[in-house]
């Protein structure tokens, strides 16, 4: 029996416009890791410790990637590259989940991770070309008084659950809720993600990419040479990188 392949109706390349997006200027990034720390605080990330970190099980929703060019001693470091979930428009993690725990949000155009649905197959992480998903291999202990700094707006994940960057969806909802209670729309720059807020060099900008007046859209136009990582895979990422401007 012939299998009829249905080509996705998602528009490819520049025709695709998401909802929330991010612009990262790699020339501004100093690699200070403030975003990494801020993200961990905001999103209740666990501290996995030395042993598990040695196994490559460290949990970060954003990391600073460093690359070198050339061979020793003439090595040159390329600009620091903050890597986080690209919130792909056609994400490779989504179709492989057997439990529908990683689904595409139609309302916010984000890749969601529904923790209570996740059964821990880790298929999504293996299928992610950006390697940005992290798995809770254990119930990592938070000694007192560390539980006091947990963010009440974010779920505390348990063992056997996959997690990843949510574009600080709790902040999105908070801003939307505040705007709605005041009877207006969310204003650009009213809120931002934890990483963008913490960045001392303002290398990270967050906002609506479908609004041409927002700062992210304007930055993308000014630079004009933004790069989307692994775009050739057709994942339609919502994070744009600038380098060598």
């Amino acid at each position, binding site marked *: 029996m012939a299998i009829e392949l249905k080509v996705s109706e998602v528009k490819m390349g520049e025709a695709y416009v998401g909802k929330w997006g991010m612009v990262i200027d790699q020339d501004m990034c100093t690699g200070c890791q403030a975003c990494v720390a801020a993200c961990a605080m905001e999103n209740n990330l666990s501290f996995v410790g030395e042993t598990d970190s040695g196994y490559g099980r460290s949990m970060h929703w954003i990391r600073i990637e460093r690359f070198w060019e050339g061979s020793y001693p003439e090595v040159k470091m390329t600009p620091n590259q903050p890597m986080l979930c690209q919130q792909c428009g056609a994400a490779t993690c989504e179709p492989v989940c057997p439990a529908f725990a990683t*689904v595409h*949000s*139609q*309302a*916010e155009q*984000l890749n*969601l991770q*529904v*923790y*209570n649905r996740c059964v821990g197959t880790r298929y999504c992480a293996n299928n992610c070309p950006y390697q940005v998903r992290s798995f809770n291999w254990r119930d990592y202990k938070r000694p007192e008084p560390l539980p006091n700094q947990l963010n009440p*707006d*974010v*779920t*505390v994940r348990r063992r056997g659950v996959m997690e990843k960057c*949510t574009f600080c*969806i*709790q902040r999105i*909802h908070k801003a939307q*809720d505040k705007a*709605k*209670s005041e009877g207006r729309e969310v204003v650009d720059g009213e809120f931002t993600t934890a990483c963008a807020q913490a960045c001392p060099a303002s290398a990270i900008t967050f906002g609506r990419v479908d609004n041409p007046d927002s700062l992210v859209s304007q930055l993308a136009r000014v630079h004009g040479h933004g790069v989307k990582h692994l775009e050739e895979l057709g994942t339609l990422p919502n994070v744009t990188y600038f380098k060598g401007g």
Partner: protein
Amino acid sequence: MIKRFFDWLKKPLGLIAVGITFLALFSLAAYGISLSQQPPAQPVQFPHRIHIGFGIQCLYCHPGAAKGPSAGIPAEARCWGCHNQIVKTQTSLLLKPLKDSVISGKPLQWVPVAQVPDFVQFNHRAHIAAGQNCENCHGDMSKMTVAENPQIFNMGFCLKCHTKVAGENHDLLVKLTDCGTCHY
């Protein structure tokens, strides 16, 4: 050995033993289920019935429901505002914990009754703003003494109302049934 045991089970004494075991397990299960259906013990036997009978609005003591995610439990100062003018407060044994708490400054440890799991993010404000009344989820408090839960807050309960409210409005339905609206 095992065959002898099964033979013994078929004898009258064995049958009685089987019966007793079955009854014990059944009553234990029934007791467990009934425990989970009882409202938790509270420091004060707070009668919602009487307070509502005086015409006090829900939002007078739980004003957070109209403003933010959590409805909140009132501080003792809120209770004391009325109760220090009531003579019975000084003598009543039931209200002694409240009086002690006000004098010592140690807050009463109320036990939350209506709860959702950690992976559910619930916002009271949005529901009140959408015109929902407290009793739609929390039941008729004018008939309750100590607060109890009239229904299990599971996803079916939430979605039943969400789909009904959205109706033909597709955009609203997408927003109200999106996983990311409640789970993050």
